């Protein structure tokens, strides 16, 4: 069970000469459900980009199943790590099904031109799993925000990754869709033992669903551990510079955070 899938050590990463992440190190076991939290600009998205290979590392190592990601080919990495990015900028000119099938592309050879039967079966399965099978013929531009996010998740799952990275999958969604997405992630994690690492802005969702939390603060790893240990009044007040009240959800043994309005 405690097999390590992702190991990060002494990681410095950022843009041009500016290091956003400084000296970050941690390990993720197979089957873990990790939430990445922290204030705006603390380096959450940069961390996802570093692990997915999008940003070159300035220092340190990122090992996936013991192998440095810099030494892996693009396709090899894309068959192991799938990424659901934060609100992608363009509307894909495809139907939902065509879009989900694109998730199979990393598994294709250079000259492969058509989907195989297996590709289609996998697409069908992940669309059923994400409950978008009825939308298969719909254009991507015709979807609501929640449906769209599910389609992106389905495409990532079609890659059959070992590690699923998500950057704020619940942003801009109503509470129903937030819970739908998080429930789905938890089910994938428990039933398919998929390793999940997701950036979350909503501390309550992070506390309710994740097994472990990574709290980033000014580009450094501030805290790591189970939600109860990370989401304390003291830690949040220090990092987010705002007063909060933390209570416990009685049944689940998980913290719930209330913001405390400032003095009038």
């Amino acid at each position, binding site marked *: 069970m405690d097999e390590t899938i992702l190991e990060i050590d002494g990681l410095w990463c950022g843009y041009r000469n500016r290091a956003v992440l400084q000296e970050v190190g941690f390990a993720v076991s197979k089957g873990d459900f990790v939430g990445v939290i922290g204030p705006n600009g603390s380096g959450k998205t940069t961390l996802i980009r570093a692990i*997915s*290979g*999008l940003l070159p590392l300035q220092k340190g190592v990122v090992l996936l199943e013991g192998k440095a990601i810099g030494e892996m080919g*693009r*396709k*090899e*990495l*894309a*068959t192991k790590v*799938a*990424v659901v*990015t934060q609100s*992608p*900028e*363009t509307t*894909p*000119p*495809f139907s939902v*099904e*065509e*879009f989900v*099938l*694109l*998730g199979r*592309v*990393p598994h*294709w050879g*250079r*000259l*492969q*031109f*058509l*989907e195989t*039967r297996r590709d*289609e079966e996998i*697409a069908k399965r992940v669309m059923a799993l994400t409950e978008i099978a009825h939308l298969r013929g719909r254009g991507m531009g015709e979807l609501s925000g929640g449906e769209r996010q599910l389609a992106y998740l389905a495409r990532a799952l079609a*890659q059959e990754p070992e590690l699923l990275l998500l950057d704020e999958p619940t942003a801009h969604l109503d509470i129903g869709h937030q819970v739908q997405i998080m429930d789905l992630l938890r089910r994938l994690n428990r039933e398919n033992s998929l390793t999940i690492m997701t950036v979350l802005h909503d501390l309550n969702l992070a506390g309710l669903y994740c097994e472990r939390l990574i709290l980033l603060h000014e580009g450094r790893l501030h805290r790591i551990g189970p939600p109860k240990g990370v989401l304390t009044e003291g830690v949040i007040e220090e990092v987010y510079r705002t007063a909060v009240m933390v209570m416990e959800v009685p049944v689940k043994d998980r913290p719930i955070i209330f913001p405390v309005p400032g003095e009038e």
Partner: protein
Amino acid sequence: MARDKLPLWIGWVAFLSVLLLVVALFSLGVGAVALPWREIPLLLFHGKGTPEHTILLQVRLPRVLLGAAVGGALAIAGVILQGMFRNPLVEPYTLGISGGAALGVSLNIVSGGSHKLGLFSLPLSGFLGAIGVISVVYILSTRGRVMRLSRLLLIGVMVSFIASSLIMLIMALTKGEDLHGIIFWIMGSLEEPNYSLIKTIIFISLGGIFISLIFAVDLNALSLGEEEAFHLGVEVERVKKILFLLASLLTGCCVSVTGIIGFVGLVVPHLVRLLVGGDHRILLVASYLSGAIFLVLCDTVARVAIAPMELPVGVITGLVGGSVFIYALSRKGVSF
């Protein structure tokens, strides 16, 4: 789903191929000497020695072949560029390639080089001009290993302006026959007496569609955005460079032989996308065939509309292409 779409795709390709054949036969038949299209195959293969055979083989067939090759090449150059820029307004000429070719040809004409160097001299100078612009645009828009597409587009547009200003300068300083030569070349024409040049273009054009199909799946991934394509395992920077060079070279080769024939690379991909959808695996093939059909048809109109005078084919492509496009947009209520 691609697999159950395959019959549909094959249907489109078959339909467009037949249409291309019909249009080609039609184009071979009309002109000062009208030839019934039923007899054309017979005349081509068994009519040696007759004047009709000579007209077909030496006047009309080269034109049809060149039109098909250039129309197809410009259309797929448009598909590639629109796909990778994710911008519906980009076309082969936006990037200044035609401007560069026109500048090369203008310089050649005014310096009198074309008289000394013979038939190949104009296309060669056009091609060198195009290559010059492609290199400038490529170098200026690439920092380190990364090619920035927004930068590429801006630089292309600016280079285009600079080239056309220089051409106007040259024209202002030129008189008589040379000026006429420049204007005539810029307007574009499929009249090309040199058979080996036509063969070269056909070869390049077919090579272009073949290579672009290898990258059709990458283009599909790129149409989601560069970051998304990266996460799908596409070597984004390498693919972008290859596609840019492919589209540029196709355009450069076509322009240097035929002059500037606008609109094919802009309008054809759009119309075809309305018909077959955004999947580049069918979009590229269907656009290639449609571009060929469109240009052969426009050239036929240009030849016979006010015979014995000939209209510049670029005028027809612009008029027909623009009107058809506006009609299609307003009818289907499609939004881009």
